[in-house]
């Protein structure tokens, strides 16, 4: 969308659009409904058509300075005002301010006698009057099909409707026409034939006793638009559509790390913990401490000053807080400081899509850095595996785009396929931590290992996972001669090793002493030999000097004798 054609090129201008102000809808439609053209909003009874169109008008009047006319064929103005008051719209005030004009068109077949040719000029005139009196830019006709039950001449009605839509286009007002869903067609009276620019279908489905509202853009001439079915929500803030399926895989990534709250687990994950905005799956069989892992993760995040939401699908917040206290984690303190928010709901409360919407809405409101979903397994009770998978995919996408780190817990069945989680989400997540029961020697112990961890070095070791009064601990892996040992087997083995070490130490010191003694003996021997050698050397030296002396004395004597003989001559 950023690549706008340059002004010099002769591209015809883009289709102008009018923002609806309905959350999410403007994203799907890339800007709203076509300006100055009619849009058909169709759906079965109770699908939210009136509310949809009323929001369009009210937002137009309050946010976009586009006053609007609401032509109500079904409800009286007072009834409408009461109905939308629950959404916080003060229709009476808006009417008083000349922002919105509600015109109730009542047409009762029993009161009317048709006596020949007629047309709908009356409707045209009052509509024109209403539009001109407040300078309306938006018009809603809800539901114009009522005309068909009030008047019998179909040919006239159809011709007049065609003329009406043309006239509305000429008036350059953005119009919503609502229509009841027909048997085989989008609307009972085939209004889609006349309104060819934009058609939006609202649906209300009940599957497995759980209802989901769906919005789909059937067509939008001259514009790109999302074609999927988008779930939407009607609550006290009106309609919100969340185009969570339109997200692409292009979110920014972070190499920042976030601690898991268990130092030893961080060490297994390259020493620093998870990547920020990554998704973490903790799966394991029942009672392996998944919630405790989630609890310590949340605790650490809040301690570090991050905001967090804990979505609990199984336990109540109080229960979680109490249970965490037993392992020395005080979540209540974080709740009190406003960093932690609990959102507990039974999975069966809503359809899956509603859960997703609620999560997304809450996340957007609370702006957390970390969220926990505990456990996702329960969601399967309200949807099939593929639906849960699709939900989690979109949720992960959404959270990553918001730079939020998410931890899911999932119950793994203790069978041969326990490597695969029920929900089949293990391939979606960035980090998968598996907690498992290891049963041997008549006891159960917990083993924890990192099945995968994208983009970081991680330990391939199984660690024994111990839940203590002080929190969670991972005990150094203990490799015995028969493999990895856990629990009391590990402790026994450790004791054994300690004993043999002491024995070995003892043996070593005795040998050392003997060597020392040997050395001393040898050293004294060396000293004796050295002395012997020195006395021998002295002896030898003595005779050598004597010889030298003798020799020089004899030389002197001889010289003396020679001189004396010379003197005699």
């Amino acid at each position, binding site marked *: 969308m950023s690549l706008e054609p340059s002004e010099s090129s002769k591209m015809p201008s883009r289709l102008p659009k009018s923002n609806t102000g309905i959350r999410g809808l403007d994203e799907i439609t890339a800007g709203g409904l076509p300006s100055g053209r009619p849009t058909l909003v169709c759906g079965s009874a109770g699908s939210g058509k009136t509310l949809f169109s009323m929001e369009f008008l009210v937002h137009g009047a309050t946010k976009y300075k586009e006053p609007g006319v609401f032509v109500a064929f079904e409800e009286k103005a007072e009834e409408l005002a009461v109905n939308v008051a629950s959404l916080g719209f003060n229709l009476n005030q808006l009417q008083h301010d000349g922002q919105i004009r509600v015109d109730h068109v009542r047409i009762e077949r029993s009161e009317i*006698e048709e*006596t020949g040719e007629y047309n709908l*000029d009356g409707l045209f005139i009052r509509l024109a009057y209403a539009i001109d009196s407040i300078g309306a830019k938006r018009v809603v006709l809800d539901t114009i099909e009522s005309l068909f039950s009030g008047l019998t001449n179909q040919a006239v009605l159809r011709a007049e409707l065609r003329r009406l839509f043309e006239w509305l286009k000429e008036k350059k007002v953005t119009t919503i026409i609502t229509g009841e869903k027909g048997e085989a067609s989008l609307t009972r009276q085939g209004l889609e034939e006349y309104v060819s620019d934009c058609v939006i279908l609202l649906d209300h489905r009940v599957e497995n006793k759980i209802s989901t509202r769906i919005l789909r853009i059937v067509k939008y001439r001259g514009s790109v638009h999302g074609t999927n079915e988008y779930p939407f929500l009607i609550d006290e803030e009106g309609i919100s559509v969340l185009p969570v399926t339109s997200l692409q895989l292009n979110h920014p990534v972070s190499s920042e790390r976030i601690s898991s709250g268990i130092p030893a687990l961080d060490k297994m994950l390259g020493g620093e913990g998870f990547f920020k905005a990554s998704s973490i799956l903790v799966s394991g069989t029942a009672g392996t401490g998944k919630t405790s892992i989630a609890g310590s993760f949340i605790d650490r995040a809040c301690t570090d000053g991050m905001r967090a939401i804990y979505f609990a699908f199984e336990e109540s917040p109080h229960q979680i807080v109490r249970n965490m206290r037993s392992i020395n984690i005080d979540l209540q303190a974080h709740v009190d400081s406003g960093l932690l928010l609990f959102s507990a709901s039974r999975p069966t409360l809503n359809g899956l899509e509603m859960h997703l919407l609620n999560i997304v809405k809450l996340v957007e409101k609370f702006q957390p850095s970390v969220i926990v979903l505990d456990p996702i397994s329960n969601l399967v009770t309200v949807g099939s595996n593929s639906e849960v998978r699709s939900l989690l995919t979109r949720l992960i996408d959404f959270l990553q785009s918001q730079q939020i780190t998410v931890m899911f817990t999932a119950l793994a069945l203790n069978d041969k396929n326990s490597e695969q989680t029920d929900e089949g989400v293990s391939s979606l997540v960035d980090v998968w931590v598996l907690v498992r029961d290891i049963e041997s020697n008549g006891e159960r112990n917990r083993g924890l290992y990192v099945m995968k961890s994208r983009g970081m070095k991680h330990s391939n070791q199984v660690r024994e996972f111990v839940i203590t009064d002080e929190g969670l601990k991972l005990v150094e892996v203990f490799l015995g001669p028969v493999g990895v040992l856990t629990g009391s087997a590990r402790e026994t083995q450790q004791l054994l090793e300690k004993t043999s070490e002491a024995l070995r130490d003892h043996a070593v010191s005795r040998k050392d002493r003997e060597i020392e003694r040997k050395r001393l003996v040898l050293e004294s021997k060396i000293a004796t030999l050295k002395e012997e050698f020195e006395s021998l050397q002295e002896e030898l030296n003595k005779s050598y000097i004597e010889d030298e002396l003798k020799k020089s004395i004899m030389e002197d004597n001889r010289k003396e004798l020679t001189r004396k003989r010379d003197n005699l001559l």
Partner: protein
Amino acid sequence: MIKDSHDTQDWDDSDEMDNHFVLDLFIAGASSNSIRAVANLREICEKYIKERYTLRVIDVHQEKSLASQEQLVALPLLIKSRPYPERRLIGDMSDTQKVLKGLGISGE
């Protein structure tokens, strides 16, 4: 309120008022439907309720706020406000039988 058994009418009005027709014909400008409706209605009135009616012809274009007040949708529209009950007739009044039926006059 019914006092006399010979009085076949249910409402409590004088005989004179019962017989007097108050008719408002709403038309949209000088369209062909409008012109035909005015002509047809005048003819019917002259023929069946001569001098027993008051006819007002109102051009809605001249007074647009009336459209909403009077709940106008289809035009031309004839509102018979007297005698009771009020009746609404739409169309160009070309179907004389239906007009008479709507006005509560038996076509003799």
